[in-house]
């Protein structure tokens, strides 16, 4: 999805240290038409007894998505544009495999609807060159959607990283997390 003016690709950049826990993204997310008016974003305290730090999480859109691979019903698809789509309503059997296998803890499951739902980067908007709802309202720019040139100007001491380590598993994503310059990989655990 290129920027309309420069032609440079638009990307998603997250910096959870900038999250102030205002929940504006949560409200905006519920306006996304692909979610059916349900908020898919995760925002919560990291470790409330010890800290007031909050974190925000959208789908990272993995290049090799664990959620789609462990789905027994072929309900989750990876688009040619790298977007990992939410479960097809006709196929999802509500087993929760995706919810439990996602290393970023993203998919949500509704027990009554027997359906998994997750962020699909506001596909109704981003597929036509608009910004995702959450990124348009985030006051601290913990969620930012724009070009690499723009983010480099705004965060001169940071660099986008999309390689993550979870034990022996290395995951590459479409969405970036902003890290101090010099890093190219985030070992989560």
């Amino acid at each position, binding site marked *: 999805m290129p920027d309309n003016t420069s032609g440079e690709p638009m990307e998603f950049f997250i910096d959870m*240290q900038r999250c102030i826990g205002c929940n504006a993204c949560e409200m905006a997310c519920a306006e996304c038409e692909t979610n059916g008016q349900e908020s898919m974003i995760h925002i*919560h305290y990291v470790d409330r007894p010890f800290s007031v730090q909050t974190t925000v999480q959208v789908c990272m859109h993995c290049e090799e998505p*664990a959620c789609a691979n462990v789905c*027994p019903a072929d309900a989750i698809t990876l688009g040619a544009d790298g977007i990992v789509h939410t479960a097809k309503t006709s196929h999802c059997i509500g087993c929760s*495999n995706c919810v439990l296998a996602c*290393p970023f*803890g993203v998919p949500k499951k509704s027990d009554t609807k*027997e359906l998994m739902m997750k962020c699909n980067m506001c596909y109704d908007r981003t597929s036509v060159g608009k910004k995702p709802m959450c990124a348009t309202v985030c006051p601290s720019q913990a969620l930012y959607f724009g070009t690499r040139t723009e983010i480099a100007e705004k965060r001169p001491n940071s660099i986008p990283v999309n390689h993550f380590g979870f*034990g022996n598993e290395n995951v590459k994503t479409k969405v970036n997390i902003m890290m101090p310059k010099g890093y190219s990989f*985030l070992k989560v655990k």
Partner: protein
Amino acid sequence: MLKHLHSLNRKAAVNGLIATALTIALVFIGSRNLQNFDPALIGYLAGTVFAVFGVTYRYSVWIQRPATQLYWKRSLQFLFSKSFITYSLLGLKLVFQNLLIQKFIFKRGTTRWIGHMLFAMGCLLGFAITLPLTFGWIHFEFKPGDTMNYYAHFFGFEMGGFELGSLMAFMAFHGLVFAAIMVTAGVVMIIRRRLTDGGLIATQTFEFDWIPLFLLLGIALTGIGIAFDYTYLQGRTYQFMAIFHAMTVILFLLYLPYGKFFHIFQRLAQLGAILYRTEGQKRGMAICPHTKEPFASQLHIDDLKQVSRDMGFDFTLEDGSNYLDLSPEGKRSTLAKAHMKVREEGGGFFG
């Protein structure tokens, strides 16, 4: 051609051939050696036999996938355990709740549920009438000297009769018309939704979401057209309606194993998933090391570790534990803490 044969899944192909042979055998048995088979329906029979092979083949390939195989095996294991009676009753309840009245779709939206129910029940009624007719299992006939009563035969055995012109006769002869009206109404409701919902407009595809609707609409409208033609037009458009109807039905049967309609056969797995969840909760819950709260059954977590390994993912940590032991919230918090640590090392929380 041979190259393509080599790429076939052998187990699935064998299952497909067995199912096809069984269907053909049942056609011979049910129609009393084709005595009661209607040759006008040969095209429909060929399409159905192909669909039987295709559905069985795809289903067999599908249940060989690690995640699907696990649910398949576990469902049978739990069903045929000492809790057989409990799980059989649960299974019956779920068949009614999830397959017949489709409660879960009602929770996803009322209009959606009404539309889906209309065409699902219309299709079910249509299949219940047409399949036995196509296979020659059912046929109707008069008895010598009695032209006022029509007698139904199933597998060659007389099942009862009804008087021509009676309510029963009207219902029997118009069953497919009722089914077609239900399908048309349901499809129109769903088409309206697909044309007005912004989310669906962005994500739908022609081959997956629209072709099934066009096929159902084509079948239903030409089906109604046949009845309309012989009732009001003295058969003037019969050729067109009958040929177009046969074409749409056969296309539907060819599409059945590959497209969206395959979810009809996959839906049964939902019952297995609920049974799995019930048994898992009974056996004990996994506690997240971060939130200290139960979040899924330990059985599910252990099975998922194996399935993810089978799919090429290794979430084993340095201490031998597994990243999948964390709940979704635990995973998000762990990521945030790792990010904060890196920021601290970088000398500033914001860059």
